């Protein structure tokens, strides 16, 4: 069943239109990546789905579980079962690990238990009372994912979760994302610039260039097709 169905999405900012008809389908339980160079419009796409104050959606539809999302407030979209892990992680800096997670639990329809979430992140369960502002980038990324997982969503939107992290933490986050998808059966839309990381976890890939989806390929096809990688991703 198609869980998320973005169709003909056009969106932009005061400074101009950025997306010119984006089509993305994510099936229930699937792990899909959205690849593209810096400035291609990946973050804009995720924020349009999550209902951020910016960008403005100019056209197209965003269907989730058969219902239209665009025009809904972000908290309504969250309550339908979408958790968003934004680019800058955005843990609440002066809330503790537990408070960050509890906030998500308090406002989800069908949340996970906090101990279940912390079992999933042993690193975090050792710093329950630590404020997010005093945590490392890797720890903050884990907390942002833990917060999203706590809501027990049907779809998780991840915006460049590996950005700026040390290699061993990148591998840890890759494992976490794979587990969230396999064991927890949560569909994931992963935004990435880094093809290697996307290929490591996702089965299917959309390639975005200048606000349009230019290719949609399986992992095997992406590996095989050097021309696509060269042209749109520079690798």
């Amino acid at each position: 069943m198609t869980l998320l169905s973005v169709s003909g999405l056009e969106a932009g900012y005061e400074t101009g239109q950025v997306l010119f008809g984006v089509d993305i389908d994510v099936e229930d339980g699937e792990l899909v990546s959205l690849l593209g160079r810096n400035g291609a419009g990946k973050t804009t796409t995720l924020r349009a789905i999550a209902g951020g104050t910016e960008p403005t959606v100019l056209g197209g539809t965003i269907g989730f579980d058969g219902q239209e999302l665009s025009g809904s407030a972000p908290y309504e979209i969250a309550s339908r079962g979408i958790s968003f892990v934004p680019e800058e992680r955005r843990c609440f800096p002066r809330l503790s690990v537990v408070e960050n997670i509890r906030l998500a639990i308090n406002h989800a329809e069908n949340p996970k238990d906090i101990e279940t979430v912390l079992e999933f992140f042993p690193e975090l369960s050792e710093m329950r009372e630590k404020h997010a502002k005093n945590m490392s980038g890797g720890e903050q990324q884990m907390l942002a994912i833990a917060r999203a997982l706590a809501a027990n969503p049907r779809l998780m939107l991840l915006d460049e979760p590996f950005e700026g992290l040390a290699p061993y933490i990148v591998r840890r986050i890759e494992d976490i994302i794979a587990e969230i998808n396999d064991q927890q059966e949560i569909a994931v839309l992963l935004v990435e610039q880094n093809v290697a990381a996307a290929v490591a976890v996702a089965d299917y890939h959309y390639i975005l260039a200048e606000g349009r989806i230019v290719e949609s390929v399986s992992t095997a096809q992406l590996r095989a097709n050097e021309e696509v990688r060269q042209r749109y991703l520079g690798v």
Partner: protein
Amino acid sequence: MSAILDARTQAQRLLSESSPAAKLGGLAGVLLLGNAAVQEPGLFIDQAIGGLVYGMILVMISLGLALVLGLMGVVNFAHGALFMLGGYFTYAAMASYGIPFWAALLIAPVGVGVVGIVIEVVVLRRLYGKEPIIGLLATFGLTLMIEEAARFVWGASAVQPAKPAFLTGGTDLGVTQVGTYRLFTVAVATVSVAGVYYLITRTDFGLSVRAGVQDGEMTEFVGVNLPLRFTAMFFLGSAIAGLGGALRVVEFGIDPGAAEEFVLLAFVVVVIGGVGSIFGSVVAGLLVGWAQFLIPVVLSALAVITGVSAINVQGISDLIPFLVMIAVLLIRPRGLFGEEGLLE
């Protein structure tokens, strides 16, 4: 209990961050206060209680101002007008409708809270995320409107309902008498301020509000209906200010000028406490209240000791909140408990 622990860590932080000069100044202040207390213990205690009553009223007004500033980023100049309305609503309930004092004490804050909701929904909601100056101008306009409306309905001179009989007496403290109503004011104010503090720092509702202050958009992404919380906080802040007005009108009366007089004092308190710090607003409110009532006593005692009568400056009292603000900002530009963040 944990609130007291909070207070201790906050106080320790303040102490450890103060310079030797500030500590010396603090010591001198304690000595001067001691001198005044010894010279005229009755007057001193009288003024200390007066300062406490006044300070608690300032805290009640400042809390709402600080919360709305922290959560919504709006400088609500109309907050003083809400305080004033609390006084007028109480007067109207008691004097015009014969409603007993205790019931008026409930009705007036709720009424002011409802006015607050109307202001939030009709005016402020359009201003979130805009330049702060726009909010300031809009709420200044609202203040003038509410003030003129009050003048139209209740006249330009002060009104005051009769004090309820069971609160008219005094309590003998040996060196002086304290009006029972003053003790009542302090008790009601303490309970309501403690209640707000508990709500913000210890409940799930407070957690969502603190998150909203730190990152509003992310709070909504996590599933929090933030607009609803804005309205709820505006109701709460307005109602607490209204309760302050209700408590004050019975002892001192209220006039339309109170709207601007008290919003300025509340700004002073918020700035001294550190913008956004609830705890700071509480400390600063009490500090300003006591400073205003005790500094004149200290000066007159000092004038007696030194024989220099010029020290006893007449009419300095109304200037004191602003002098305290200047002094605090010179030493700590962020205010006593201000951080880069809000609502610590």
